[in-house]
């Protein structure tokens, strides 16, 4: 018999989509049975109490978690989110219910060995509940008690060769799209760069020295499968500089219906025969394509590498050979001043180990932000407050028209004193000699 009645939650067990309620119940049951005779280090009924408190929230229409307390592991400024229940008497199993963020491997590939080992640890010292994965990318261990935090960290590092991820005013755990590992569109090795920078900046990740959180995300191409442009203070998006590679025979195979358009992504509906004019040429945002006499022509100078044509005809078109990435800066969620997408900072940069050029940009951005950023001010907000010019100045990047969608519509240009002949200081008396009051 379940510890708490959950009539509301129970209604979420039917329906086709995997039911988290069913899963919670199966875990609650497994812990109750404890077939493996585990010496649980946190309450055995933690999951039952979680179901209970959640049912209560469903009834009350509000959360029953208190404002997080400051808990963590020694020497680290992040990786743990403290959490306490506001009904601890009723739900003692979740009185403490802290999460731990475990840094996920780049690309999120796993061996079952590794995952099973983590499960053993977490079942033993935590609730046995996880998020696979958190929105930033970490493996989230969901719910443990304060005394277990150091124990878990110790085992993670000693047994699993695995570190915690970020939280607090730190670099957050970087994440990436699958990229070259299994995607033909990738313009650089996202896993390699993501992993390298994560390790390079471990200090920034674990020891809060920033005004606020800071995120890196790595997308192999402008399709942005890790949504870097929307969710990272610095987004690294693969792109290319030369011509799209075209296989004319394969183009023909699309036109004649041999290959399914967009790799079959639209096969659930009958959209009619593939129409290269309507579906590719006319949808190219720059209008830089032609299909005449069975030949596809691209005016590559006008192409903005939006990926559309490549997505539609992956067997015929490929990104160019001169590959690299664009860096965009300042994306963030809406709080406090409205959401921001990343703004293009470096149009094109090569991706070459040891990534010195990329690191120069990162570190110049950080220097500026650490110097000028206010407490709890994201990079994007600082950019808004001090202006994009300032970011360019501090990163020593030359202003180019690529930096803007359009030039300013207001003429409120700030001039530097040394740009204006004669400077700003003038003698009003001199002026009055020729201009009576």
């Amino acid at each position, binding site marked *: 018999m379940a510890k708490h009645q959950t009539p509301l939650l129970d209604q979420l067990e039917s329906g086709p*989509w995997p039911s988290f309620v069913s899963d919670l119940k199966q875990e609650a049951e497994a812990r109750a049975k404890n077939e493996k005779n585990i010496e649980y280090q946190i309450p055995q009924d933690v999951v039952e109490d979680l179901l209970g408190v959640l049912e209560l929230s469903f009834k009350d229409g509000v959360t029953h978690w208190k404002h997080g307390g400051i808990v963590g592991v020694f020497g680290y400024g992040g990786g743990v989110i403290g959490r306490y229940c506001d009904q601890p008497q009723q739900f003692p199993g979740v009185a403490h219910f802290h999460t731990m963020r475990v840094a996920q491997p780049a690309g999120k590939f796993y061996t079952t060995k590794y995952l099973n080992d983590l499960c053993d640890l977490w079942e033993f010292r935590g609730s046995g509940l996880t998020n696979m994965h958190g929105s930033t990318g970490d493996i989230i261990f969901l719910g443990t008690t304060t005394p277990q935090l150091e124990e878990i960290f110790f085992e993670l590092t000693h047994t699993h060769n695995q570190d915690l991820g970020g939280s607090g005013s730190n670099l957050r755990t970087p994440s990436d799209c699958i990229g070259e590992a299994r995607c033909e569109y990738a313009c650089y090795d996202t896993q390699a760069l993501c992993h390298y920078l994560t390790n390079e900046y471990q200090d920034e990740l674990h020891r809060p020295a920033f005004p606020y959180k800071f995120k890196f995300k790595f997308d192999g191409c402008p399709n942005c499968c890790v949504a870097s442009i929307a969710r990272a203070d610095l987004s690294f998006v693969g792109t290319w500089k030369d011509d799209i590679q075209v296989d004319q025979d394969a183009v023909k195979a699309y036109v004649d219906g041999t290959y399914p358009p967009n790799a079959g992504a639209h096969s659930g509906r009958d959209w009619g025969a593939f129409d290269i004019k309507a579906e590719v040429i006319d949808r190219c945002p720059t209008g830089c394509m032609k299909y005449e006499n069975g030949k596809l022509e691209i005016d590559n100078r006008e192409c903005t590498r939006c990926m559309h044509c490549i997505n539609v005809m992956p067997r015929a078109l490929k990104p160019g050979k001169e590959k690299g990435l664009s860096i965009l800066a300042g994306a963030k969620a809406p709080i406090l001043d409205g959401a921001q997408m990343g703004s293009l900072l470096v149009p094109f940069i090569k991706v070459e180990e040891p990534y010195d050029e990329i690191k120069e940009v990162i570190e110049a951005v950080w220097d500026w932000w650490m110097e000028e950023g206010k407490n709890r001010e994201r990079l994007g907000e600082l950019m808004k407050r001090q202006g994009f010019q300032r970011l360019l100045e501090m990163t020593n990047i030359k202003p180019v028209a690529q930096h803007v969608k359009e030039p300013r519509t207001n003429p409120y240009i700030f001039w530097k004193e040394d740009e204006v002949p004669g400077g700003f200081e003038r003698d009003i008396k001199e002026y009055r000699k020729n201009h009576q009051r």
Partner: protein
Amino acid sequence: MAFISSGYNPAEPMKDRITDIGPRSYEEFYPPVIAKNKGKWAYHEILEPGILVHVSETGDEVYTVRVGGCRLMSVTHIREICEIADKHCDGYLRFTTRNNIEFMVDSKDKVEPLKKDLAGRKFAGGSFKFPIGGTGAGVTNIIHTQGWIHCHTPATDASGPVKATMDALFDHFQSMDLPAQVRVSLACCLNMCGAVHCSDIAILGYHRKPPMIEDEYLDKMCEIPLAVAACPTAAIKPVKKTLEDGTEVKTVAVNNERCMYCGNCYTMCPALPLADKEGDGIVIMVGGKVSNRISAPKFSKVAVAFLPNNAPLWPETTAVIKQIIDAYSKDARKYERVGEWAERIGWERFFEKCNLEFTHHLIDDFRDPAYYTWRQTTQFKFTD
């Protein structure tokens, strides 16, 4: 239960301490076919919903079976995933950026047994454990956040509305019958832990009441200047009040007129809770995207200002989302994302086609940029 030490000694925390080792290397985890063909993939095809093949220049192939992950996962469930991967995939698997699980095999004949195995597994309550789908022009997994499972600031739950919505959209998860991919996200408060601000359809928890002020404890629990500074609309000011028992305390006052219930003050000060059964609920936002395909990334726009938290099934929310997806599905062009469609037909027509009411709440009034969202042209369409 007895405390079992890991080896950690609280008296000597630095002893044998290992730090800054970062995540495990991705190279340890690549299935052999991936390790071998990395960077050499020539093309891919989605063979059916949830099943992809990637073909390498070397001639190698990798078949991927993608299944819905409900993200909030128990170790029991993860172990079942591992068991499947051990059985079919030589002990490898991966998770996608939207929390789906990908099982990969290196030849076609391994696909059917895997599919069959996955499709057969169900939870006790009847739901699929591993529904196959989430590829191409359909609906994939909902990116979501903690909600009432773990967070202190939510204005709605996460897992509950997500389950209800995915049930409602399940057909689109298992078919690729929409004009383009439709990305649904949920964030339980406007911290928006996710890409809700640029999703095709976003479910957003939102408070509608200014914080309560716990005068008696505020000064003890919070730093008043931080709470004051936290408010983006300058609605909070420090005041002195006399409690019923006559003691004078330092606390704050909130100008309700200026408050937009963002909860940032509560983040800084637990003595300013906002949550309220009737006040809290869901905002539906639409038309965002992050890919750079055809059009530039777009922010989501508010389409419905408020829907109640009708737990456990959030029927108003799922109904509105269905309405939008149905109208979109019927009207949009191939490859056209929700936001691109709305912009092409005009937002006035979007509201009409989706049968949604336009209310004053949807007009931007936040700071200077609001102005640019008003209509500065005589170009508009008449609606009925």
